[in-house]
């Protein structure tokens, strides 16, 4: 599917700006998403108290509805965004912006796991220090973006290797190896105890 230019409307300027990601990690849990390794992002709740509240109340309510959209913002060269348009239990929009070179692996893992965990925090928070904080999982189904992503992942990973001083040939081969290893690691699944 070819990307196309669309105009997206938002209720406020705040919703139209990307949310600040302060940390990312991944969690695999037995019984959740068949034990897949699901990426987690800690977002800065001081900028978006509405998202912080959504994550807090999510633990007291049944699952809601959300629409997702992968997109590139205008003047967002080298970045890709995941727009989450929550419909229930609270109506709001969150735009997660990822750096193609630094966070390509994270985007790839979101697409592999078909889900992402959102957790609110503050600058300096890490998963290890906020294990008990509330978090919510959001399903990220394939919207036809995966094929386009494959091309972008190759291009930007190669660019990253070139920036680190590898020549074109070396960068190409390193990219292939990295993606292969990353995806084999990303296919990890937490298995429950075997019942005899």
């Amino acid at each position, binding site marked *: 599917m070819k990307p196309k230019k669309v105009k997206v409307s938002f209720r406020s300027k705040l919703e139209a700006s990307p949310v600040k990601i302060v940390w990312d990690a991944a969690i695999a849990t037995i019984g959740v998403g068949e034990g897949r390794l699901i990426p987690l992002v800690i977002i800065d709740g001081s900028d978006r*108290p*509405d998202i*912080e*509240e*959504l994550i*807090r*109340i999510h633990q*007291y*309510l*049944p699952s*809601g509805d959300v629409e997702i959209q992968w997109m590139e913002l205008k003047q967002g060269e080298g970045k890709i965004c995941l727009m989450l348009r929550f419909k*229930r*239990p*609270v*109506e709001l929009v969150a735009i997660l912006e990822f750096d193609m070179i630094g966070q390509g692996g994270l985007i790839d893992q979101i697409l592999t796991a078909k889900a992402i965990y959102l957790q609110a925090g503050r600058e300096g928070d890490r998963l290890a220090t906020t294990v008990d904080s509330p978090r919510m999982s959001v399903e990220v189904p394939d919207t036809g973006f995966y094929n386009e992503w494959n091309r972008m992942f190759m291009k930007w990973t190669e660019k990253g290797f070139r920036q680190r001083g590898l020549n074109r040939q070396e960068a190409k081969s390193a990219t292939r190896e990295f993606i292969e290893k990353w995806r084999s690691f990303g296919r990890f699944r937490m298995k429950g105890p075997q019942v005899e």
Partner: protein
Amino acid sequence: MANDLSLYAAIASGVAALVSGWFAYLSLRVSNRSLRLSQQQEERHRPHLVPYLIDGYAKFVARDNLRVYGFSLSVSNRSDVDDSVAQIELQLTYKAPSGISIAVKARHDAKLNNVFAGGNTATLPVPLRIDAHQTIAGWVYFGIKEELFSGSAVDKFIIILTDSHDVVSTVEPIIVRELIDETQKG
């Protein structure tokens, strides 16, 4: 003589033009009226549900730490086509601990009918079919965990009905009476 003839001809053609103008005006009026009628008919074919709030109560269930809201509603289908309610939600606006105002939606849960009047109330099922020009009445229930509010009061309630065409109708309860269970109190 020739001048008279041309004068008569001019008058006759003027009269004919006036008559045809009159007929054109009449047919314009008729076509406007029939356009209005067909627009009204089209309007009546559009889904149009009108909810009416009869009563509203809130009750705290200590055992589950749950705040349950019950509303008695009537829903009228004012269109010429059958319709059905696909979803009934309660939107509650409250102040979050951070100070911002948040509107959260809870879905109607028919299982909560035993909280009020021991389950002896007519609960509206969802999905709910409402035929053309029909009115249906019953109770809707919403349960919210007390922890969600974190001590703050609800500023606003809105009951939202969404039909099978995604057309939304709302009704806003202003006063919701608190029910206290005497046996719980003791």
